[in-house]
């Protein structure tokens, strides 16, 4: 494994730099603040150069390691033998007190190691397969067009986040999953309660349980009246034959609903902003659909909206790039940092459509790599193509400096994106 070695018994431990026991105040406090809203905190680039496995202090005084280089993030995420992803275990790092509660309550496979992870994941993988997503593409495109019809009819100016970026993935998830569209605000509220950085532990826990209970009731309804949707199919294929209990499926369904509503919304908002700020990029995307496909991958790379996941705990003592990480210590795998690693992406801060295909890690890597990534890719391609076609003269309706970014959330994005266009 590149750059990662188990520590042999012969090797003198004292020769390896490690976090000194009892060392406290001198460790930097994580998370860091952004300076540029369109770039990760500057500490990431500094760490990639000087100390790629960086020790930090967390909100509760505990220590954790930040993994900042692409090479090491990939290697650790691929190595589920030596690094555990089980949520809530001792040493599993968190960014808030609420997240501790959320992690302890997580029952879906996102928080499991193998073999359990694969057994559960395979019961829903087919629902997000490439052939299934390709087949859904016309319906996804029709949903985007209907929303833009309405936006255009209502006229400028509008908040693109509210009018499009929230509603579009919500409508797609509703059709795919089988949850009534009118419930999307409740579902988004549950996602926000999980991903916020300022919510109370009690609120986060309550909303997590509410969403699971919601899916559990949906399972009962679909048992009675099956439809052409994910819940009905999984109930028929796995719950009724007894391979999966309704309660287990409720946990998995809650995870899918949350993920499907929040992340794509943020990528549409941020991607649109990047497109509006770069007229040359926008012309290239308009001229060639293949460039939209490449732009989506670059947007995913430079935005990397998932900020404080994935996380792992070392199962054994390992040496990574000369740093000793002891068994039981926690690591944050910083996707946003890995995705700006100049060793893999020359001139990493620039959006470059000629880069070789998707080596970015915005969807993670290893066994936990995003289940819904093909849906996300198709949604983003459809969204930008539809915006370019239907609103060719779209522009920001406020100065860039007036935008509010999601520094208060674990999933990064923009809260509102006021836009205008020449009304017909």
């Amino acid at each position, binding site marked *: 494994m590149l750059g990662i070695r188990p520590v042999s018994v012969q090797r003198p431990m004292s020769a390896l730099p490690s976090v000194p026991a009892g060392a406290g105040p001198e460790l930097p406090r994580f998370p860091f603040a952004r300076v540029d809203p369109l770039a990760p905190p500057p500490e990431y680039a500094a760490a990639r150069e000087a100390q790629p496995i960086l020790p930090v202090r967390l909100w509760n005084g505990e220590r954790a390691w930040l993994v900042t280089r692409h090479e090491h993030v990939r290697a650790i995420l691929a190595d589920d033998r030596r690094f555990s992803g089980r949520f809530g275990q001792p040493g599993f790092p968190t960014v808030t007190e609420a997240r501790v509660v959320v992690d302890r309550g997580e029952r879906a496979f996102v928080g499991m190691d193998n073999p359990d992870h694969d057994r559960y*994941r395979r019961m829903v993988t087919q629902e*997000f*397969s490439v052939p299934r997503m390709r087949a859904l593409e016309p319906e996804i495109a029709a949903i985007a067009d209907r929303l833009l019809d309405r936006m255009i009819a209502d006229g400028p100016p509008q908040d693109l986040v509210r009018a499009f970026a929230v509603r579009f993935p919500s409508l797609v998830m509703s059709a795919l999953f089988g949850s009534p569209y009118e419930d999307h605000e409740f579902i988004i509220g549950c996602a926000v309660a999980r991903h916020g950085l300022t919510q109370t532990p009690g609120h986060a826990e309550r909303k997590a349980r509410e969403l699971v209970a919601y899916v559990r009731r949906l399972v009962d309804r679909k048992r009675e009246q099956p439809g052409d949707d994910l819940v009905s199919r999984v109930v028929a294929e796995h719950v009724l034959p007894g391979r999966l209990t309704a309660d287990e499926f409720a946990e998995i369904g809650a995870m899918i609903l949350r993920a499907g509503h929040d992340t794509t919304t943020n990528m549409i908002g941020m991607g649109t902003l990047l497109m509006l700020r770069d007229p040359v990029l926008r012309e290239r995307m308009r001229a060639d659909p293949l460039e939209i496909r490449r732009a989506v991958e670059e947007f995913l790379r430079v935005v990397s909206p998932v900020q404080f996941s994935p996380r792992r705990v070392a199962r054994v003592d390992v040496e990574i790039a000369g740093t000793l990480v002891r068994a039981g210590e926690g690591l944050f795998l910083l996707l946003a940092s890995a995705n700006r690693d100049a060793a893999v992406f020359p001139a990493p801060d620039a959006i470059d459509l000629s880069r070789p295909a998707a*080596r970015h890690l915005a*969807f993670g890597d290893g066994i936990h790599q995003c289940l819904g990534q093909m849906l996300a890719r198709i949604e983003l391609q459809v969204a930008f193509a539809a915006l370019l076609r239907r609103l060719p003269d779209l522009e920001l309706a406020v100065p860039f400096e007036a935008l509010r970014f999601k520094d208060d959330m674990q999933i990064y994005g923009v809260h509102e994106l006021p836009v205008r266009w020449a009304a017909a």
Partner: protein
Amino acid sequence: MSGAAGRLAVRVDEHRCVGAGQCVWVAPQVFDQRASDGVVVLRDPHPPHALEPYVREAAALCPARAIRIEEAPPSAPE
């Protein structure tokens, strides 16, 4: 080059596969996903060399490292 010498040898590990779909996304001529559980299906275990960049990309992107490309049988010396 002709016949087997002009083709790659691809192997997939169904046990490791997590069904992320990266291989089907970049090389649909070679990879598919099983309808029952989304696990990789090798449509063509000996794809032509023209597809090699796509197959290598699929192997590089596979999150479960479940795709192996074996060296093709040696072609005639130059």
